[in-house]
């Protein structure tokens, strides 16, 4: 049992948790949160692969580490876009529901433009 294995299993479980939250929680903001959990789990798996690739001079394989760094930034950008969409949707409809039935009953004039 090494640190790599422990955190690898942790990453796998975090990815599973995130997947469950993204499907099962009806609230969009919570879906975004869950999605971030999912991506963090995947990043951890990359980290584990990097850690296992350690050779004498380096503490890890730098390629997966670099991929994770770009990944974290892209995940943050995706989160920002999703939150902006959600806030705009909330402003337009006054609700955050994603269910088609509830949206149809929203007053039409509240959707501007």
């Amino acid at each position, binding site marked *: *049992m*090494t*640190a*790599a*294995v*422990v*955190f*690898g*299993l*942790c990453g*796998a*479980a*975090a*990815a*599973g*948790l995130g*997947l*469950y939250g993204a*499907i*099962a929680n*009806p*609230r969009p*903001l*919570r879906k*975004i*949160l869950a999605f971030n959990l999912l991506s*963090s*789990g995947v990043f951890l*798996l990359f*980290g584990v*692969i990097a*850690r*296992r*690739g*350690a*050779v004498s001079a*380096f503490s*890890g*394989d*730098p*390629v997966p*580490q*670099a*991929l994770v*760094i*770009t990944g*974290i*930034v*892209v995940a943050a*950008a995706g*989160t*920002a*876009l999703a*939150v*902006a*969409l959600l*806030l*705009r949707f909330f402003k337009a409809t006054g609700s*955050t529901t994603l269910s088609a039935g509830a949206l149809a009953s929203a007053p039409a004039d509240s959707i501007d*433009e």
Partner: protein
Amino acid sequence: MTSDIILDCILAALVLAVGCWVIVVRDSFAAAVGFVAYGLLLTLVWVRLDAIDVALMEGAIGSGLTGALLLRASSRLGAKEQSTAAEQPGVMLRTVAALLSVIVAAMLATAVLYLPDPAPTLAPEAAANASATGMANPVTNVLMAFRAMDTMLEKVVLLVALAGVWSLARDRYWGGRPGPRFRSDPKDPLALLAQTLPPLGIVVGIYMLWEGADAPGGAFQGGTIIAAMWLLAVIAGLTDTPPVSNRRVRLALIAGPLLFLIVGFGGLWLGEAFLAYPVAYAKPLLLVIEFAMTLTVAVTLGLLIVGPPEREGAP
């Protein structure tokens, strides 16, 4: 060391416990606070995995920028959002979702347990070629030189995301200033914080960029810190967001990828390949690109977090 493994197990269990709580807790604000804590714990995990560059990134983004973004979103949505909780999917769907998640997690866990041994690694190649760039930080080398194409395209992805955010503006606010105008109150401790912290933060950000050549750090970490400091000044009302049609803002947005492209085509022109750096000038060239990248990352992330234009720009 056995005590290290015990600490690792505890840390992993803690990460999962906070993760579970973030998923199941009813209140969205509480979930967002949980996410900040989750980001902090992940930072510790990355340190334990000896990936200091990633730990810096996770610390700056996970518990900093994204955490703040989600906290603000949850308070802007307010109580209205709770009512959506009534649409809890049925037991059937939840069971299927749980089953699916368990299967995915189990498959990933199996993959972790049966990773090939010895592990494939590109570290020796990265070490062998480090002299070509003159920089000692292998991660910076990968980001800026060996996989420069990825990094450049990643910046383009950020720009597309920003275009997506801007496109949510109402027609009449197009090109205007994003976000609300926060009022400044000189007696507020927040104003003091926002006056004192950003100068320090910008120094730390530039230090990150500078250190990034030889030690953990780099353009992404530095840019993120600078973005956070700018956002702090905006929230405290000390400065306003610029109109997104501002030419200088747009120039800062494309500075990183543009410089990458110029250098890239320069490499092609000089006869080697796209993005091939002439070895004699590799280090100065990379430093210039990194500087432009820091600027671009800072401006892009900052504008992504403040959201679409909500007001008309100043005449």
